[in-house]
């Protein structure tokens, strides 16, 4: 048994450490540890609830919209503000754009280098690359001349002897399986996607002034005025710009991302049997298609237990508990508690830095272990697509069916590392197709003369109850996100978040059940202990966002007020 450590896990957001025991070429045991913490919830206490979104937004600059959305929803729920249709549609456009951009960046810039060998691209035949490209897509940048240019650019880069961010990686590892032509194709699209991601987020800049950290969020609505006839508002010109950007996004996803995903996946189908994990999936549901509290969601909510797609269960947030048995907190009696019923006493008991090994028998992470009805849950694109598939979402069923038939496999392969990669692509396609419709709905609504963007009746704190609690749920790119706020006398008495990467990256619970990362790593092959690229493949398939997961702690250990779960 060999104990290996991957720290830092790079190409993620935040600070993540994986320790694993490897025997006979596969992982027998794994531990996931988050190694950074800020305490943003504590910082929020005592502040104006209308400011909370800006603080919460800074939990993450990658998924730069998601905590702001969850925050304004939580405060609105508490004070009874009702955002008008324009605000809902502005949020739909912002949320969908975030998901599309985030997923594409994850595929090309955070995950691809686990599957794509850049060095191998140097030996590709550009003409063969062009034939490959044209056989899978009618994307116009596909000539031999074009790929030769990309190859020469990479060659020049290598010849200068300064490999920059590509230095000292696992190039040449035997588990890289793409032929040189496919590697060159992927490198070209890595560079194109860098340009593309700058363009698509201009939708955010048009609406929110900038990206990252767009600035038009508002409790009760959105701060972007809409008026087809005003120069300083979201007007017909802005609509036209956004429709054009959305069309470009759909084209790139359809003609570049999805064909690349399918081409690369076809060389790695064995990864459809690796990295399954806990087998339980959760989605809160997202994209309400109306103002009513019970309006249907474009992506439905639900719970899947033990991979049973035929039986998607309704979601009950009251069944969420958290364990701190293996987290750096005082643990009074070891019983898992509802997240808002206990006290949180941080108590770092790990080794003093610098250290080589964590005490994996004891406490070993700044993350807690959230559980649903006692069970660990995987959240994220795979969970959402499985819930939608199980609930009979027609377009999701169609897209999933198309991917499975192209790969020649059945739905059971979805529960895997490759399944996560595929589900992320399917979701991107789905949302890129839907985005234009929401922009049209916004244009139509403001064209009818509805220029309301906010519920101003609840802006002044004198209109609020003296004490109120609220919940804001959101499906972020990486999964189910919840914010809970307790307001007293116009200021924040308590603020809580349970975040996707806490669900996925958390440590073992009091029952010894591993978290989704830890479970997914079991059985993962490791060919070379010095270059554990296989571990990166499975961990990256979750798209870790660790800063999100680790803000949730109360750094002072103060007694927290109870917050009722809504």
């Amino acid at each position: 048994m060999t104990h290996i450590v991957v720290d830092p896990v790079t190409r993620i957001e935040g600070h993540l450490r994986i320790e694993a025991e490897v025997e006979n070429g596969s992982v027998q045991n794994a531990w996931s540890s988050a190694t950074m913490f800020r305490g943003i919830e504590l910082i929020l206490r005592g502040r104006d609830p209308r400011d909370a979104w800006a603080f919460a937004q800074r939990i993450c600059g990658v998924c730069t919209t998601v905590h702001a959305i969850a925050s304004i929803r939580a405060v609105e729920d508490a004070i009874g503000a009702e955002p008008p249709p324009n605000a809902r549609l502005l949020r739909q456009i912002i949320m969908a754009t975030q998901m599309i951009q985030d997923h594409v960046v994850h595929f090309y810039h955070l995950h691809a280098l686990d599957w794509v060998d850049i060095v191998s691209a140097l030996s590709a035949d550009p003409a063969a690359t062009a034939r490959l490209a044209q056989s899978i897509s009618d994307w116009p940048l596909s000539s031999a001349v074009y790929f030769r240019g990309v190859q020469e650019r990479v060659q020049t880069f290598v010849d200068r002897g300064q490999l920059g961010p590509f230095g000292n990686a696992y190039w040449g590892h035997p588990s890289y399986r793409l032929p040189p032509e496919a590697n060159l194709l992927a490198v070209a699209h890595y560079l194109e996607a860098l340009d593309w991601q700058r363009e698509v987020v201009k939708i955010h800049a048009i609406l929110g002034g900038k990206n990252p950290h767009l600035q038009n969020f508002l409790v009760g609505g959105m701060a972007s005025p809409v008026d087809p006839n005003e120069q300083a508002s979201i007007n017909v010109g802005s609509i036209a710009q956004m429709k054009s950007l959305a069309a470009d996004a759909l084209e790139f996803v359809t003609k570049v991302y999805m064909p690349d995903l399918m081409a690369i996946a076809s060389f790695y189908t064995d990864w459809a049997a690796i990295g399954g994990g806990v087998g339980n999936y959760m989605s809160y549901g997202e994209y309400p298609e109306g103002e009513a509290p019970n309006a249907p969601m474009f992506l439905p909510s639900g719970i899947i237990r033990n991979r049973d797609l035929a039986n998607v269960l309704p979601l009950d947030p009251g069944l969420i508990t958290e364990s701190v048995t293996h987290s750096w907190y005082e643990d009074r009696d070891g019983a898992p508690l509802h997240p808002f019923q206990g006290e949180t006493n941080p108590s770092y008991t790990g080794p003093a830095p610098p250290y080589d090994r964590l005490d994996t028998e004891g406490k070993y992470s700044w993350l807690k272990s959230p559980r649903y009805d006692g069970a660990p849950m995987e959240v994220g694109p795979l969970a959402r697509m499985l819930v939608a598939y199980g609930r009979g979402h027609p377009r999701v069923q169609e897209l999933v069916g198309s991917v499975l038939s192209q790969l020649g496999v059945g739905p059971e392969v979805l529960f895997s590392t490759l399944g996560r990669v595929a589900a992320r692509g399917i979701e991107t396609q789905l949302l890129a197709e839907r985005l234009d419709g929401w922009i049209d709905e916004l244009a139509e609504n403001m064209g009818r003369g509805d220029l309301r963007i906010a519920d101003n009746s609840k802006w002044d704190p004198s209109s609020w109850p003296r004490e109120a609690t609220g919940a804001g749920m959101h499906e972020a790119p990486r999964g189910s996100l919840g914010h809970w706020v307790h307001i007293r006398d116009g200021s924040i008495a308590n603020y809580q978040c349970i975040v996707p990467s806490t669900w996925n990256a958390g440590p073992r619970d009091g029952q010894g059940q591993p978290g989704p990362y830890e479970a997914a790593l079991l059985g993962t092959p490791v060919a070379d202990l010095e270059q554990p690229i296989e571990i990166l493949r499975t961990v990256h398939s979750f798209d870790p966002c660790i800063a999100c997961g680790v803000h949730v702690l109360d750094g002072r250990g103060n007694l927290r007020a109870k917050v009722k779960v809504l």
Partner: protein
Amino acid sequence: MAAKGDWLVGELERRGVTRREFAAFCSTVAGILMLPRSAGAELAQAMATGRKPTLVWLEFQDCAGNTESFLRAARPSAADILLDTLSVDYHETIMAAAGHQAEAVLQDTVSGQSGQYLVVVEGSIPTGANGAYCTIGGRSALDIVREVCGSAQATIAVGTCAAFGGIPAAAPNPTGALSVADAVPGIRNLINLPACPANAANLAALVVYFVTYGRWPPLDGLRRPLFAYGKTIHDNCERRAHYDAGQYVELWGDEGHRKGYCLYKVGCKGPVCFQNCPEVGWNEGTNWPVGCGHPCLGCAEPDFWDKMTPFYAHLDGFPGFNRQTHIDKVGAWGTLGVAAAFGAHALIQIARRRGTGDAQDDSAETGETS
């Protein structure tokens, strides 16, 4: 192998960028830097020659927002050329290597290029729990920042967290978070590039300035480059005429809001925030926060999470402007005296700048790049 000096021009041509377009790009950068147009030619010459300076990018208590902003860096077609101008050898969010191979890269840079590499720091540095609030490869952030910045030619603290402590240092600062300046007192050639996040255009311009001249631009008293932080948001705001005319947004979505009136009454901190957002814009000039209809948060100023909040409470008039407008109270909080504090702060900054002009270290003169 391409001859030294040809690679950039060659790459540009392969990417369909003509020499003329490249010259225009350099003029644009010179414009952001408020240099004479003729400086563009000098920039172009400097960027096309020489070994790429090594840069390592450290992330501590961060949200990666500045990294994301950096990835949005763009001026026509030359955007990633600008990235290629540097050799970014270590950057956790984008680098291919992981684990001890990644840490080896950092160690090789520190020991092999001592005094020659650049560092960007993103995020604050926690001092509580003996450093356990942020560790990388088992080492504390404080330990890493001391070593890596201590041997660097220069350090850029990008974003308000690295520059001033930012959100982790907001009250009650649960982790004892510090800015780079406070965590590693006395390191040489520290440049602060605050804002939440820092604007990619300003980071790009700063890097080009350094690559071109081998030294850093003049700084204000808070070590911010004057080219980006020399004036307040309010100075050049597109809504300034409405402020002067007394036309204000009163409610979200009202006629004044739709017509682009001044956001002062709903809390805009533009009058006390030094940054070039109105001129440079965000996402290649697509828009900026006040442009979209939301008040400025004052995010490039120290302690803005404490001193600029509540964000929707308006300033109560401030010295240094020719019009003192009495504003009736908005919301239950009214004003909090931040205006007086920040008005004074603004005047101090102006005075400091007038007094010192150029706050850069003399050691910057050693900043040769070739």
